[in-house]
């Protein structure tokens, strides 16, 4: 077979349009996921009470369900239950937000719990106001510590957006399969997006791996 580059040359704007949608959905789900993830994280950090129980159930539930099921469920069942119309794009953002918030909550929690209790006590004993204890003593090192996990979750989220092609969201994977079936140049388009995903995700994984190694060597000292 011949690799028909002219098909790519002709249709690449659609692929990039798909890429734009992929990144937009990622950004939105990440942003909403961070907000809800923080709420769930602080709920779970309480360790007792109603907020704690809700947070635990929420986190366990959405970490257990396969992303595809979640996507189909939000797209097909949620509109029926709420009797309103939800676009495929909105369904995608909702489903991935549920997915992301549950994972992010655990990443945040692990980062916060890793701050040694003694440092918080020292700050308390110095009379540092609690807002500053949160920012300088807890969150600052916690964020640094959770960066590798956060970035490596981001790569998972980017990959998960390709599942939205199943409900017809015009993201990158969807565009490639549509263009493939229209032109029969499947090899060209699917290979092209494989390369694009790789170009986006690989540097992130490298960053996560390096950051992780730096963290390990620092805590070893």
């Amino acid at each position, binding site marked *: 077979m011949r690799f028909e580059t002219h098909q790519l040359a002709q249709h690449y704007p659609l692929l990039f349009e798909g890429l734009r949608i992929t990144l937009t959905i990622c950004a939105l789900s990440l942003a909403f996921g961070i907000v809800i993830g923080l709420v769930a994280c602080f709920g779970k950090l309480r360790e007792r009470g109603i907020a704690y129980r809700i947070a635990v159930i929420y986190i366990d539930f959405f970490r257990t369900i396969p992303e595809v099921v979640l996507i189909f469920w939000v797209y097909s069942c949620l509109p029926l239950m709420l009797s309103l119309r939800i676009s495929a794009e909105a369904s995608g953002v909702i489903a991935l937000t549920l997915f992301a918030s549950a994972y992010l909550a655990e990443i945040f929690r692990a980062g916060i719990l890793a701050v040694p209790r003694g440092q918080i006590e020292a700050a*308390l004993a110095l009379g540092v106001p609690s807002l500053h204890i949160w920012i300088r003593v807890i969150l600052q090192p916690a964020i640094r510590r959770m960066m590798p996990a956060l970035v490596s979750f981001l790569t998972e989220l980017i990959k998960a957006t390709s599942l939205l092609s199943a409900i017809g969201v015009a993201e990158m994977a969807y565009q490639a399969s549509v263009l493939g079936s229209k032109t029969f140049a499947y090899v060209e388009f699917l290979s092209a997006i494989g390369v694009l995903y790789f170009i986006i995700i690989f540097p992130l994984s490298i960053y996560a791996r390096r950051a992780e190694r730096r963290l390990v060597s620092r805590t070893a000292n």
Partner: protein
Amino acid sequence: MTEGRGKRGQTVVRCVEVTKRFGSFEALRKVSVEVRAGEVVCIIGPSGGGKSTFLRTLNGLESIEEGEIHVLDVRLPAGKREIERLRREVGMVFQSFNLFLHMSVRANLTLAPTTALGLSKAEANERAKRLLTRVGIEEQIDKYPGQLSGGQQQRVAIARALAMEPKIMLFDEPTSSLDPEMVNEVLDVIRGLAESGMTMLVVTHEMGFAREVADRVLFITDGQILVDAPPAEFFGRPTDERQAAFLSKIL
């Protein structure tokens, strides 16, 4: 207020029948004691006897179930604001240093003065330099705690507490996690502080230090202060059976 042992001053710590429980375990049982300004009080006793818990009730790190504690002008138990205000005037040094590991020595010393006292960066910085000189490690100001020896870290921790210009200092086994060769450099700093007239309560296992520096020695075990005596008397003529047993084991 004219009696007292050598040093005279107003009462700055007064505990009245203080009881602290962890679940059903009584860590402190009706503890009553007073400390005057300028006094150095060493607290000794077996592990698990309540020494650290006692110290930690004085700045509200441990809440109390019964009784009351007057420290300076604050009466515990108290609300969050009152406790925060109290902690600005009571410094504490921990066994495990508890420095902020992600901050430079400079930032460790300036965090509390800038956020709790409202000092400018420049003022806090000046204070940090002055205190590091006092504890003999001014050249380490831009290092991180992980780059320092245990003795140096504990001296930074002392300087960090002093940066709030406290009226009382609490030391919770300040040399217990140090290598033997570093114990003296830290004790020297604490000794210097005692000589400058700072009111101090020091939980310690360093009997030589207690004998030399303390105005009074408290023996705490089973959540009670069994003995409260000047060092010569405390080490020379034990009055309590358990005190005598403890001393015979460690001296």
